[in-house]
């Protein structure tokens, strides 16, 4: 029963599977993203208050959603690596970081672009915006710590500990930021007051969320494959692979 779990731990097995699966996933991802964008940008109705600016939602919400999900995946993979000393888990955890940071930056950026026409300002110190900014800091800290170590094994373990500390802290930070915000000002403009979303807007959004998830998996597989080749460069199967690809 645990066989697949141990197979997963073998870099070689993971590399071959990821290589086979990636093209199919990419095709699925591109078609979903195209469908989502066409539905969202052309066929979905404009908002009755916000007009066409609401369409940035189809990028913004999936990006914000992914930014949080990836941090949890990163921490869980790090914990698996610490507990079972599994090489692959650390590789997954480390490969997650830059993708997660990219999604967080994207969410902040699209949020700022969306904020200007709707709230009249690029940035407000609203609870959600602030937590997202702190999440970006946590990602950057993780990446900085990992690159500061010369020894890969120590780097993996140290950044896994940091990711776990961060994941315990995220709910506390989120809660404290929300408290802080309500202390300073009452109802802000931040909560978009719209009726529960119409299905013509909901479908493109859901499609985009799935497409972004697939994008994450595809990019993650690419990064993992690179990381495996780099770390296993002394292994005979990697040498054979490189020799074969040169011909």
């Amino acid at each position, binding site marked *: 029963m645990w066989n697949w779990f141990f197979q997963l731990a073998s870099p070689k097995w993971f590399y071959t599977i990821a290589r086979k699966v990636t093209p199919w996933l990419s095709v699925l991802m591109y078609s979903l993203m195209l469908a989502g964008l066409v539905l969202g940008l052309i066929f979905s109705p404009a908002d009755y208050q916000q007009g066409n600016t609401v369409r940035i939602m189809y990028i913004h919400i999936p990006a914000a959603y992914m930014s949080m999900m990836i941090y949890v995946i990163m921490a869980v993979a790090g914990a698996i690596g610490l507990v079972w000393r599994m090489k692959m888990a650390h590789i997954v955890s480390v490969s997650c970081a830059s993708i997660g940071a990219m999604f967080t930056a994207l969410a902040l950026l699209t949020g700022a672009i969306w904020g200007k026409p709707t709230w009249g300002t690029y940035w407000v110190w609203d609870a959600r915006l602030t937590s997202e900014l702190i999440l970006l800091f946590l990602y*950057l*800290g993780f990446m900085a710590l990992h690159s*500061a170590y010369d020894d890969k094994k120590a780097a993996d*373990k140290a950044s896994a500990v940091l990711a*776990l500390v*961060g994941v315990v802290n995220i709910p506390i930070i989120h809660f404290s930021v929300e408290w802080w915000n309500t202390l300073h000002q009452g109802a802000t403009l931040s909560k978009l007051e719209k009726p529960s979303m119409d299905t013509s807007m909901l479908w493109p959004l859901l499609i985009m969320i799935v497409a972004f998830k697939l994008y994450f998996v595809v990019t993650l597989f690419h990064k993992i494959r690179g990381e495996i080749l780099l770390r296993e460069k002394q292994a005979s199967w990697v040498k054979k692979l490189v020799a074969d690809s040169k011909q």
Partner: protein
Amino acid sequence: MKNFNRIVTRELSVVFRSQSEFVYPLAFFIMVTSMFPLAVTPEPAQLAFIAPGVIWVAALLSLLLSLNAFYQSDFQDGSLEQMLLAGVSGSLIILAKAFANWIVTGLPLVLIAPIIGVLLNLELQANMIAMLALLIGTPSLCLIGAIGINLTVGLRNGGVLLTLLVLPLFIPILIFGASAVEAASIGKNYSGQLAILAAILILSLMLAPFAAAAAMKISID
């Protein structure tokens, strides 16, 4: 418990034999807080308005500065490794060191904060609450800081990296500490913020020593 007392005594005697390094964070706290009137405005009402934030940010930074002195030399000369080899549990070492760190840096900050409060025109009650909030909040800072310093202690450019790692984790304490003082200065109820600071202290007492001990073992390996 005996080991805890031994480590604390050892840390304190190290401190009292080489005073200078341990006085820096306190001097830093006083100097940074006195820069703000010069930079922002000497106007009393404005100063009282920014005082809670200034005191708390300066306290965070000076505690961050103090961490290095407690872990760096013990890591480099192998004392930490010897303590671990002698069978003392890692989390106990962290707990004792964080306690000594708080006695040497945190407690003086708590005691000197009212004077800074007077300089920044904070009224009496808010000043007392600032002291109380620092008393509950600074031990958590020492404990969380211990995680960060143990992750970076073996690195060449650990100092700046430590700041990057630890400051985001300090944010909840900063928010509740400063807002307790602010609430007290406008006559609102501040017990909620203090209770949450206490809850954070309990949580970090339970979890931080384990995380920091794991980090210490990674750095030593």
